[in-house]
């Protein structure tokens, strides 16, 4: 059964009378225990997607469409229409979140351990005298070998990889079903990054976590996720099972990204996608990818493609699909 | 001109504040040439008249038109506050820059000087010196300036210390630019926003201080009058001659609110979070 179902989600920002479309008609569903990777360039709306799922859009942004979530007591909740107090309850306990800048998401003047016990006191039923023990266990679960030392350390005393793991422990403290990780590894060096991904992988298995991983690293998405959603300038260009997308990408943009990633791995310098990502404030008419698309025709410049289902788990928005043979 | 209007309209408090201060400035600068009365010419036969058509704000003990005196008082009050602020900002910027750039012992000495100056009870010292008989508008300006540059110096120093470490300063150093150019082209413009905001807020503080000492009779002396001086003239019979104190009080409050609104508005606009989509 799908834990999270997003239907035709659109996000609009309207500063001073103009309306800027940040996300357009995003639809996907995520089964319990599975991982969805959201990939796209800077400015494609990846972070906005996370924020609208958790209900933390900045002022001036509005959502339309539907987001359904099945809570742990099996009730179906519409996140868009839910009361703020219910959402507040859900954050941490049902849906956890990890941000790119772990150091910025931790309070600099509170010891790491106390930040975790704080969350435990609000988001779990663990008795007061057992909270510290539980916090130490959490720190150990996220692969920190000296939990006692980390417990008493301030965030700035730890390395980047360590703070990112403390932030993960913090997100897991409320035992959420769904974890949203917004580029958690992009500020880490390659060894810490791989360690972190391995760790996420293990935690996912152990806790039956459902995961949304936002990343601009195609490799990371391919090796980690069950499903992939490709965003381009706020539009969902392609969505499907990782295997299908890796084997037969249908959208020219997806194909270009995969080609680059593959070539880099084979130690070749690939051809880049020409041009720059189109701006959200002044998007091109028609398909937003057409200025950079090798297959663009006249129709792409005027008409926005609708979603085509290639199979029941693979959909794409393009008039001229990449040859599937 | 259109750009200035657009800029002012982009924030509500800046808009309201600018209109308020604009009215006060036009009133004080252009008003006297339109008024049939002189601020200092006495006419005892018309003393203590309540507001009427010929004297919209009434007259005082000596039969002087309060409206004409308010216009003149505006020039004095605003003039003192603006001049003192300018001097204070200049001193503060110089000290702050030296402190941030030279560093070391000079920085420590200058910052202790700031602490000492902030520790002085400035109102008391101003009262003491003026009470000894040395009172002139120039002296008041000088005193206000000497006792209010410290905040600016601190702000400039801390901002410069932050900006100095930014990579675009490192890049400018790597290009081989001279230090003077780095300070004036790369650092100061990026500090300017904060300086402007705190100077505008300083103006309103200084209006208040000047009004207080003038109210105590130690500030601006006759025949000149500031709003504080006029305020004090109504104190003998605050109910019977209410118009003297009430109108000057309103002007003082309006000016302070106006400058504070401008300061808040500028702070909103110059906040880095807002510059991203200009």
């Amino acid at each position, binding site marked *: 059964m799908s834990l999270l179902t997003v239907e035709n989600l659109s996000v609009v920002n309207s500063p001073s009378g103009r309306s800027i479309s940040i996300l357009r008609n995003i639809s996907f569903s995520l089964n319990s225990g599975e991982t969805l990777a959201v990939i796209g360039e800077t400015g494609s709306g990846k972070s906005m997607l996370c924020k609208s799922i958790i209900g933390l859009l900045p002022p001036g942004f509005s959502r339309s469409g539907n987001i359904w979530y099945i809570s742990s007591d099996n009730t179906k909740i519409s996140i868009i229409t839910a009361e703020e107090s219910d959402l507040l309850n859900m954050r941490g306990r049902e849906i956890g979140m990890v941000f790119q800048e772990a150091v910025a998401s931790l309070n600099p003047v509170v010891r790491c351990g106390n930040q975790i016990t704080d969350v435990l006191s609000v988001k779990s039923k663990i008795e007061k005298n057992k909270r510290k023990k539980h916090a130490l266990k959490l720190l150990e679960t996220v692969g920190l070998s000296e939990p006692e030392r980390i417990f008493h350390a301030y965030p700035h005393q730890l390395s980047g990889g360590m703070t990112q793991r403390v932030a993960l422990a913090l997100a897991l403290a409320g035992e959420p079903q769904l974890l949203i990780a917004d580029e958690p590894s992009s500020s880490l060096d390659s060894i810490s990054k791989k360690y972190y991904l391995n760790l996420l992988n293990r935690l996912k298995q152990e806790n039956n976590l459902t995961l949304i991983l936002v990343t601009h690293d195609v490799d990371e998405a391919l090796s980690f996720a069950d499903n992939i959603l490709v965003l381009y300038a706020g539009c969902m260009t392609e969505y499907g099972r990782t295997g299908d997308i890796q084997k037969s990408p249908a959208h020219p943009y997806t194909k270009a990204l995969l080609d680059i990633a593959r070539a880099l791995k084979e130690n070749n310098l690939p051809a880049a996608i020409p041009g720059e990502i189109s701006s959200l404030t002044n998007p091109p008419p028609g398909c937003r990818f057409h200025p950079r698309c090798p297959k663009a025709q006249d129709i792409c410049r005027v008409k926005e493609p609708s979603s085509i289902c290639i199979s029941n788990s693979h959909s794409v928005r393009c008039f001229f699909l990449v040859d599937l043979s | 001109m259109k750009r200035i209007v657009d800029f002012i309209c982009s924030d509500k408090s800046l808009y309201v504040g600018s209109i308020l201060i604009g009215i006060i400035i036009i009133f004080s600068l252009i008003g006297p040439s339109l008024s049939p009365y002189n601020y200092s010419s006495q006419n005892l036969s018309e003393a203590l008249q309540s507001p009427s058509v010929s004297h919209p704000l009434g007259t005082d003990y000596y039969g002087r038109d309060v409206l004409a005196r308010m216009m003149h008082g505006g020039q004095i009050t605003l003039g003192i506050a603006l001049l003192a602020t300018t001097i204070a900002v200049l001193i503060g910027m110089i000290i702050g820059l030296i402190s941030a750039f030279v560093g070391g012992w000079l920085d420590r000495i200058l910052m202790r000087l700031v602490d000492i100056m902030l520790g002085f009870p400035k109102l008391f010292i101003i009262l003491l010196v003026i009470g000894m008989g040395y009172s002139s508008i120039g002296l008041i300006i000088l005193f206000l300036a000497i006792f209010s540059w410290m905040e600016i110096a601190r702000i400039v120093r801390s901002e410069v210390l932050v900006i100095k470490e930014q990579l675009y300063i490192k890049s400018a150093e790597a290009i*081989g630019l001279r230090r003077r150019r780095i300070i004036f082209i790369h650092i100061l413009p990026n500090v300017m926003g904060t300086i402007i905001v705190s100077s505008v807020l300083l103006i309103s503080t200084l209006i208040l201080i000047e009004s207080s000492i003038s109210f105590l009779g130690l500030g601006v002396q006759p025949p000149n009058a500031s709003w504080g001086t006029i305020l004090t003239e109504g104190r003998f019979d605050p109910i019977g001659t209410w118009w003297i104190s009430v109108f000057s009080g309103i002007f003082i409050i309006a000016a302070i609110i106006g400058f504070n609104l401008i300061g808040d508005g500028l702070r909103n606009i110059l906040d880095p979070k807002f510059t991203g989509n200009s």
Partner: protein
Amino acid sequence: MQAGITASKTLLQIQNLRIVYQQKSTFFTADQTVHAVNGVSFSIRQGESFAIVGRSGCGKTSIAMSALGFVKPSAGAISFMGKNIWQLNRKNIRRLRPLIQPVFQDYGNSLNPRMTVNKIIIEALRAQPNDQTRTGNVKQLLDTVGLDSEIRWRYPHQLSGGQKQRINIARALALNPKLLILDEPVSSQDLSAGVQLIELLNRLKQTYQLSYLLISHNLSIVRLLSDRIAIMKNGVFTEQGPAETLLQHPSDNHTKELIDASNLTNLSKTGLV
């Protein structure tokens, strides 16, 4: 290409470099001494690209900052074109400075937010004290880095990440440098923009016989940009050699670890590398 490198002369030579940071005690902490760089030696020839690879905190950025003249070495020598840059007088430093230019990872913060692209580049052009051999006007420089000349009227916040980094490169080129110090030049870029930058850097190196000192933690990028690689850990080089040999036949464990980390296909479920 390879023959050209061996024939050309040494541009930057670093001998036994040590950098120690003293952290003064505060109310809460005791005095601390951090040995960031602990005896490092290498040299870069003209037209050669040398990469220092290591995890964050291994000391690689300290070396770059020291070569740029921002951090004073505690011991050792940094010579550029045969002159020890930390023993020059002011006038000679000013003459030498433009020849070593940085390109930082934090591309956004390296451009003054209150200056247009035009102003940023003109400023660099004017600061150029050496012979005008290949610098031109702003348009030409933007063209060299593959940007449309219309972009020169924009402010940094109106540019994409890739464009900002190109402006950084164009500003560096305006000074007619011999050595570019690239501190993680592409690691915070999007995939496609990163590839475009690597392409550009390789092309510039060929055209202008530029030398690069590349600082990075990402071997898959380093291998596309460098001729020789040094692996750094805890302030010292653990291994150093020609790029291909080192990556094909790593001898040090840390090198193997880094190579393994650049490959994400073999994620384990135990949570350990």
